[in-house]
């Protein structure tokens, strides 16, 4: 299985390549990708240097152009596709049907991967994108159980990539407007969920409060671990009880599923985290490389080592990990 790793900037790309990535994915410095954070992503000259570094190490480069252009901004998405083609990247990760049509019509040789933001969870949806735009691979939303992924592979017209590790989106990606409802900025259009400029931290009566826009997301007692305020991980009141109604602050970790993911025919494993530090990328890629190599070397005896789990747990949001929707009881 191919290990696809996040590159928010050149140091992260280097960390991913040096620690055993088979492919890296990155975005341009604008709204055309789903991690449009200030200080992240690649301008032209950085991209050239990064491509050279990856190629020298036989690592593929995928470019995410996976947000949804509004009419007045169409040319920016078009230019981004042109640029990805001109740089001869290994694939473009796309979500918008108009963008896919432009890419497939203009550059039939440019490999297209269906972004998780397109939210394809079944083989008929995959057939649409495959027949219309000849997509070669699809990244599957984090809403399917392992049994459902297995059934999907049996009928899928294209290779499938799944999320292996990182922040856990609990909603069907590309179809979640929670952040725009509260902050006015849409992940689908601007490429940012819970934008930093909408976040405030405030100490009041010995408790730490986090807000997104003006909405109270959580309150922490002294000594409690405070997390970055995202709406789906907030503590809210429902029926008079206060708890994490949507999800606890937690990360997805599927390392124990490596043998099963391999057995059912998953083509690639994706590590989330273009917004995280180069140190995070280095640590996570390193242990995943070790785990995949260990599995390849001796599949029958594969066991997740404690030291790998420790590394992953230490860098996880909320210092806990979950199998998420892959495990039916989570749902």
């Amino acid at each position, binding site marked *: 299985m191919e290990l696809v790793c996040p590159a928010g900037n050149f140091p992260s790309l280097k960390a991913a390549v040096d620690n055993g990535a088979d492919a890296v994915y990155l975005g341009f410095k604008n709204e055309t990708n789903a991690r449009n954070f200030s200080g992240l992503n690649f301008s032209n000259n950085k991209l050239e240097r990064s491509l050279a570094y990856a190629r020298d190490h036989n690592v593929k480069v995928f470019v995410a152009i996976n947000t949804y252009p509004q009419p007045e901004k169409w040319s920016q998405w078009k230019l981004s596709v042109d640029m990805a083609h001109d740089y001869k990247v290994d694939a473009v990760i796309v979500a918008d049907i108009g963008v896919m049509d432009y890419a497939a019509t203009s550059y039939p040789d440019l490999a297209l991967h269906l972004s998780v933001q397109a*939210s394809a969870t*079944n083989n008929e*949806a995959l057939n649409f994108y495959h027949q219309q735009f000849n997509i070669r691979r699809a990244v599957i939303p984090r809403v399917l159980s392992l049994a459902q992924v297995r059934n999907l592979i049996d009928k899928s017209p294209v290779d499938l990539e799944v999320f292996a590790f990182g922040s856990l989106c609990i909603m069907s990606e590309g179809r979640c407007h929670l952040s725009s409802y509260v902050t006015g900025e849409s992940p689908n259009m601007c490429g940012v969920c819970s934008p930093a400029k909408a976040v405030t931290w405030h100490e009041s009566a010995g408790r730490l409060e986090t807000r997104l826009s003006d909405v109270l997301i959580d309150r922490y007692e002294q000594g409690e671990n405070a997390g970055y305020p995202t709406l789906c991980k907030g503590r809210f009141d429902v029926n008079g009880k206060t708890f994490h109604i949507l999800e606890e602050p937690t990360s997805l970790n599927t390392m124990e599923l490596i043998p099963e993911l391999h057995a059912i025919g998953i083509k690639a494993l994706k590590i989330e985290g273009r917004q995280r530090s180069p140190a995070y990328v280095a640590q996570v890629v390193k242990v995943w490389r070790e785990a995949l190599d260990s599995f390849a070397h001796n599949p029958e005896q594969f066991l997740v080592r404690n030291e790998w789990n420790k590394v992953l747990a230490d860098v996880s949001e909320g210092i806990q990990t979950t199998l998420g929707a892959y495990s039916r009881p989570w749902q």
Partner: protein
Amino acid sequence: MIPQVVKNNKLPKLSLGPLLYYWSRDKVFEFYEQIASSSVDIVYLGETVCAKRREMKLPDWLQLATMLRNNGKQVVLSTLCLLESQSDLNGLKKICNIDGFMIEANDMAAVQILSQLQLRFVSGPFINIYNAHTLNILVRNHLLRWVMPVELPKETLQGILSEAEDLEIYNQFETEIFSYGYLPLALSARCFTARAQNLAKDNCQFICRQYPDGLAIKSQEGEGVFNINGIQTQSGAVYNLVAEVGEMTRMGVDVFRLSPQSEDMLTIIDMFDQARHGNIQTAVVSDNNCNGYWHKTKGMMNHV
């Protein structure tokens, strides 16, 4: 032949969107019998949120569809938003193959199936159409009407319609705007209503039946943030564009969608009926309303 849609400042239509909640069969029948004599022109029928909900079987929906059509309504059969299994797909295919009714596609699976069958369809608000290039591809695949994604503002609608003129497809589709009700904002594998009662989804006991208009999520300061409805998360405030009906009509919007709620539906329909006839005296915008998305700001804002 691609049908031409006539757009000469005619009276916009009112539609009743699909019922998003889980009501008893009796309640559903009683509700739509009232709708039959209301002023809505189009009624969307069917389960769009959760495949486990089985109070209403397909023949029940078809019985209502026939009754409403006999009362002069255009009936559209709505389909699931999130399809995760082969049985979900089988259910979808069954609906797509029913003769005599147009289908609302709420996932690309339905778009694919209907396009293969060469049947005209409506795309629901969870089909991501953010520009006319996308609309163009879907029109080529038999889309007849689109419901704009709920988070898009009036400027984007204007942009899409003028881009559609440039692409020479403006007369080939109708535009419908979600205009009243709790906004569907997100879909998940997890059932939040079951989670709120500490129940697993596989043993949910159909707990969502207890909440005919969803279950409120409030901040720890008591502010309404969201409304949960099974695997769907909705807005905490009711979206209300009644004050924008005149402007939407001038922009070329063909249909205003009102989302079913358990109380006062006929009053809401009447309010929009008055508004589309130019009488906004009866228009009521309450404290629990929002309209921010239309005004290109936070969805939860109420812009006056």
